[in-house]
C-alpha cells in the first residue's frame, strides 16, 4: 500500500502564473480600446502583428532550446510582452518595425537570457528602444487623435491602414501629427499658455492633450483593477508616479517659456500610466522587496522626468525603465528586509569573501 510522499505544504492557493498573465491582459483592454478609438485601426494592427510575431518567435526558440512549447507558451508571458509592445508603438508604423521590435523582445531580451524569469530587462521595452533608436523617423510619427482630424478627413479604414502598414502607402495629409510631449519639447521659447493656445491638441482638454489623457485614464483604471486583485503591490506605481509628480511640481513654474509642463500633463501624457501599472510592475526585471520596489519606481519616475525635460527624446518611459532594470540588483542589495530575530538588515553581498561577482 503506497501513498505519495510530498513535502509540505500540501495545499496551494488557486493562483497561477498563467492566471496572473491573463489578468494583466484583461486589464490592458480599456486602454487598448480607448487608444484604438482615438487613433484608429493602426493600434489593432500593431497588436495583431506584434502578438503573432512574439508567439511564433517564442515557439521557435523554445523548439530550438528543446523546451516543452505548450507549457511555456501557455503561461501567456509572450502575449503580455507582445501586447505591451503593440500598445507602446505608434499606430500605422510599417510592419517591419513591429516585427523587428517583437523579435528582439522575445529572442534577445527574453529567451537568450534563459526565458521567463531570467531576463534582467523588460523585453517589451528592449524591443521598443531598439526600434526607437534604429528607425527614429517611423517611430516619432504619431497619428492625430480622432477629434482633431481636419474637416472631412477621417482615420484610414482597415484596408487602407493595412495598405499603409504592409505596403508602405503614404497616409493622406492631416492624419499624422505631433504628440503633446513633442510639442513641449520643440516649442522652446513659448510660454505654456501660448503652447496651449496655439495648438488644437489642447483644445478640448487642457490637461495633457486630447486623446492622450483618456488613454492614460483608461490604463490607470486597468492598473487599479490589477492592484485590487493583488497582482502587484502599490509600491512600484506609487514610487514612479510620486516622483514624477514631485519633479514636475518642483520645476513647474506656472507656465514660463522654459517650463517642461504641469504635473497633470506629465502624469497623463505619453506612456506614464502604461509604464506605471503595466511595465515597471513586471516582477521579473524589477527590484524584489517592497521597499526596493518603491525606490525602483521612484528612480524610474525621476529618470522619466529628467529625460522628458532635458533629454533629447520627448517620451522616456522605455529608457527610464531600462535604466531602472540596471539599478534593480543594486537596489535589492540595500533594501533587503530585516529577518525576524536579527537586529541588522541583510546585504545581498554578505559573506561574499571568495566570490568574484
Amino acid at each position, binding site marked *: 500500500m*503506497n501513498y*505519495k*510522499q*510530498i*513535502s509540505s505544504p500540501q495545499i496551494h492557493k488557486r493562483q497561477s502564473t498563467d492566471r496572473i498573465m491573463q489578468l494583466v491582459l484583461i486589464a490592458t483592454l480599456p486602454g487598448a480600446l480607448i487608444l484604438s478609438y482615438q487613433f484608429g485601426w493602426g493600434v489593432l494592427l500593431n497588436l495583431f502583428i506584434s502578438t503573432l510575431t512574439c508567439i511564433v518567435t517564442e515557439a521557435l526558440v523554445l523548439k530550438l532550446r528543446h523546451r516543452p512549447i505548450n507549457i511555456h507558451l501557455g503561461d501567456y508571458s509572450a502575449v503580455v510582452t507582445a501586447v505591451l509592445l503593440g500598445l507602446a508603438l505608434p499606430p500605422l508604423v510599417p510592419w517591419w518595425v513591429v516585427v523587428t521590435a517583437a523579435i528582439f523582445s522575445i529572442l534577445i531580451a527574453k529567451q537568450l537570457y534563459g526565458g521567463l524569469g531570467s531576463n534582467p530587462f523588460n523585453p517589451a521595452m528592449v524591443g521598443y528602444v531598439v526600434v526607437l533608436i534604429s528607425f527614429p523617423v517611423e517611430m516619432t510619427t504619431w497619428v492625430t487623435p480622432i477629434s482633431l482630424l481636419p474637416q472631412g478627413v477621417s482615420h484610414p479604414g482597415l484596408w487602407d491602414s493595412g495598405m499603409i502598414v504592409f505596403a508602405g502607402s503614404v497616409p493622406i495629409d492631416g492624419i499624422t501629427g505631433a504628440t503633446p510631449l513633442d510639442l513641449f519639447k520643440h516649442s522652446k521659447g513659448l510660454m505654456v499658455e501660448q503652447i496651449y493656445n496655439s495648438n488644437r491638441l489642447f483644445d478640448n482638454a487642457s490637461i495633457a492633450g486630447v486623446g492622450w489623457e483618456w488613454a492614460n485614464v483608461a490604463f490607470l483604471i486597468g492598473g487599479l483593477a490589477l492592484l485590487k486583485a493583488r497582482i502587484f503591490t502599490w509600491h512600484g506605481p506609487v514610487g514612479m508616479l510620486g516622483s514624477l509628480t514631485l519633479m514636475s511640481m518642483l520645476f513647474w513654474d506656472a507656465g514660463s517659456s522654459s517650463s517642461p509642463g504641469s504635473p497633470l500633463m506629465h502624469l497623463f501624457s505619453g506612456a506614464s500610466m502604461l509604464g506605471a501599472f503595466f511595465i515597471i510592475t513586471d516582477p521579473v526585471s524589477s527590484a524584489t522587496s517592497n521597499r526596493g520596489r518603491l525606490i525602483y519606481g521612484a528612480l524610474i519616475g525621476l529618470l522619466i522626468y529628467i529625460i522628458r525635460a532635458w533629454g533629447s527624446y520627448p517620451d522616456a518611459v522605455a529608457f527610464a525603465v531600462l535604466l531602472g532594470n540596471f539599478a534593480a540588483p543594486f537596489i535589492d542589495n540595500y533594501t533587503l528586509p530585516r529577518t525576524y530575530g536579527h537586529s541588522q538588515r541583510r546585504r545581498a553581498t554578505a559573506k561574499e569573501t*571568495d566570490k*568574484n561577482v
Partner: protein
Amino acid sequence: MINLLLDNVVLASLLALIGLGGMFGGLLGYAAEKFKINSDPVIDTIDELLPQTQCGQCGFPGCRPYAQSIADGDAINKCPPGGQTTINAIAKLLDITAVPLDEEHGQEELRTIAYIREDECIGCTKCIQACPVDAILGSAKLMHTVIEKECTGCDLCVDPCPVDCIDMLPVKTSIDTWYWPSPENIPPSTTSAYTEGHAS
C-alpha cells in the same frame, strides 16, 4: 646645495628617485621580515577543502602532500572521495576552471565505512597498521573492530587483511541523518511523488 639642485633638474630628480627607491625598498624589506608567513596559507586552505580520508588514491601519501602539490600547480581532479564538490571548491578558491574527476584515480562513489566481520578476524593487527587515522581498535591475536565514527572509508585496510574479513559498506541513512532531498533529485516523471529513502 639647494641651489645646485634647483639648477640641475636632472640631478634633482635622480636624487629624489633614488631616495624614494631606497626608502620604499627599506620599508618593503622590513615588512617582508616583520610579517613573514612561514607556511604557505594556500596549502592550508586547499588542505581544508580536501576530505582528509588520507586514502592516497591521488598518488600522494595523504591529503596535505596533495594540497602542497596542487599549490605547486598539479591537477585538482585527482581526489575521488572528495568528488566533484571538492574539485569545484578548489577551482573556486584558485579561480581556475573546474574539470571532471580524473577516472584514473578512481570513481566518485557513495561514502563507505569499513566493517570487520568479527568472527573471521584472526587478530593480525595488519589493518591497524594500515589505517591512516587510527580508526581500528584491537591488539595482536585479539579481535579488531572499526570505530565507525572515525573511519574515513579510505579502503587502505582492505588489502592488507590476510583473511579478507573487512567489508566496505555504504553508509546507511537513518531517521536521524535523513533529510528531504532537494526537488531536483526527484525523477521528473513523479515530480512530487517520492517513494525511496534518500541516501545522502
